[in-house]
């Protein structure tokens, strides 16, 4: 499978001339020893990375680890960062998506249904559990898909990104994004159809 986590991708694939990349400027400041820039970047980027990872993995602790790993990689590429070639936000989406599919792959090999805790009967807890169960089922279904499809579906439907941005993140054409998301959504529906009852959507 083609990987796409090169820290410094081709300029043509990632450059987005619209708008100045403020986060790129902060990263350069960090590379020049400005620790305040690191604080600013952490404040800006960590909610994004954590949200993306948590939506894909449906596991807070794993999402935090992915966030930490993604930002660590960002600090490491900082000295080689070239403003104008890639946007930091695009780079981060890519790295987080890759780290998440790595973890989903491991989850697949461990087995999907090994965690089954008895539900706490209190209504509020039950409601919370059901939501968590549903979101976990979605994440497990992503783990059961081809990785590129899973990434395209997650970027489109969990992050709400447009096709051009997904194309830049995944380093493919917008047509390829459309094809991947369409196939991905069908695959996901097929996987979840078998688990509809536990998803709490019987009333649909």
């Amino acid at each position, binding site marked *: 499978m083609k990987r796409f986590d090169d820290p410094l991708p081709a300029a043509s694939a990632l450059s987005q001339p619209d708008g100045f990349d403020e986060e790129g400027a902060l990263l350069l400041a*960090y*590379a*020049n*020893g400005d*620790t305040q820039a*690191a*604080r600013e*970047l*952490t*404040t800006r980027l*960590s*909610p994004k990375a*954590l*949200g993306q990872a*948590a*939506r894909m993995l449906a596991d*807070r602790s794993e*999402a*935090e680890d992915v*966030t*930490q790993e993604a*930002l*660590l990689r960002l*600090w*490491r590429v*900082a*000295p080689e960062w070239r403003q104008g070639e890639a946007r930091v936000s695009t780079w981060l989406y890519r790295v987080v998506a890759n780290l998440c599919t790595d973890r989903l792959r491991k989850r697949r090999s461990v087995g999907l249904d090994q965690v089954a805790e008895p539900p706490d009967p209190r209504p509020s807890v039950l409601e919370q559990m059901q*939501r968590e169960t*549903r*979101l976990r089922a*979605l994440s497990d279904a992503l783990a059961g898909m081809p990785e590129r499809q899973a990434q395209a579906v997650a970027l489109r*439907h*969990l*992050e*709400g990104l447009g096709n051009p941005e997904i194309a830049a993140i995944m380093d493919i054409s917008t047509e390829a994004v459309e094809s991947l998301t369409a196939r991905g*959504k069908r695959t*996901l*529906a*097929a996987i*979840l*159809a078998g688990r*509809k009852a536990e*998803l709490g*959507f019987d009333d*649909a």
Partner: protein
Amino acid sequence: MREDVKVQVEDALDRLFAEARAEQHVPGDDLMARLMADATRSAPMRVLPAVAVKPVGGLTGFLAALGGWPVLGGLAMATLAGLWIGIALPDRLNDFAASVLGEQVTVSLFPDDDPFGLEG
């Protein structure tokens, strides 16, 4: 998959996506502390370009040892002042000594008397 089931599942899927998007994920203090610790630990060290130190000798080396050209002006001035004091000042130095000691003092480099009695 039957068409009605497919529509049902896709509707359910869209709601599931919406539910996932609506979740708020705010980094806690503990995570922020971990992230900042990483940022600080990974902070690139600024590497200054090495400045070549070449050995110098001769006049340049001598001047460098004194402190460079700017020092030379002061040095020349001090030399001239010493010279001027040596040539021009002895008379006034006598007056100065008289005013301090209260009597005329003659300082001669060639005494008139004969300290060693060589002249019989």
